[in-house]
């Protein structure tokens, strides 16, 4: 009965009753060619598979630009996320600096 509850209907004979958290490898989207430039967008996803649910966080990582025989990688930076994390880090650093433990030292 317990095995029945864990059965994955999409994988015959396989049982999934555990949590799977995995960073999927960076994958490429369809390349876009404009003139002599070919741009291949790349993305990476965090996939969390639960027995009866799941979660996906997919974000762009970089572009591969091919032009005149040369290939270069252009990163896609999430400025909003960086600013949010920066503010969080600043607040944490100020809180640590003003803590009684830090003042005693």
């Amino acid at each position, binding site marked *: 009965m317990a095995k029945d509850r864990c059965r994955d*209907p999409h994988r015959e004979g396989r049982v999934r009753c555990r949590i799977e958290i995995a960073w999927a490898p960076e994958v490429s989207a369809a390349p876009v060619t404009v003139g002599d430039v070919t741009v291949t967008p790349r993305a990476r996803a965090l996939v969390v598979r639960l027995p009866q*649910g799941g*979660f996906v966080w997919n974000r762009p990582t970089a572009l591969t630009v091919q032009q005149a025989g040369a290939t270069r990688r252009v990163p*896609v930076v999430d400025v*909003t996320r960086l600013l949010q994390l920066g503010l969080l880090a600043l607040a944490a650093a100020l809180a640590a600096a003003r803590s009684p433990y830090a003042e005693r030292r």
Partner: protein
Amino acid sequence: MTDSKAPTLEEAVALLDKAREQAATMLETIFAAAQPGAVYGQPVGADGYTVITAAEVTSGGGFGMGMGLGPPSRPDGRAAPPAEAPQPETRHTGGAGGLGGGGGAMGRPVAIITIGPDGVKVKPVVDVTKVALAGLTAWASMLGLLRARRRARNR
């Protein structure tokens, strides 16, 4: 007399299995957000420039189900005590089951990619509201911490 419309245990389990399969199909749709095509938009061309949007995509969901059956009925129509072992062809006096689930998806623009005569450029998209909210939260937390420390010193 037994009710011929009452489901057997096997029928109820088969029904739940079907519902579980449908829920798994729904989950596979959620996991489709892990494809790179979900992050990058279709290229749009105008005035010699081609623009591609890049967004962060988050999706999630889950479901749950449960089922319960009443005690098996006796041939005289009365319910048997719970301790009695169910017979293979026994009909149950009642039961209930339920299935529920939910899910959602969210997208946030991260950058705009332009391909033009001046090359390939990645222009970041800054969500001012999110940054301002993060700043306000950090400032309010610091203020609360300082007040708490002042109060502790005055005691």
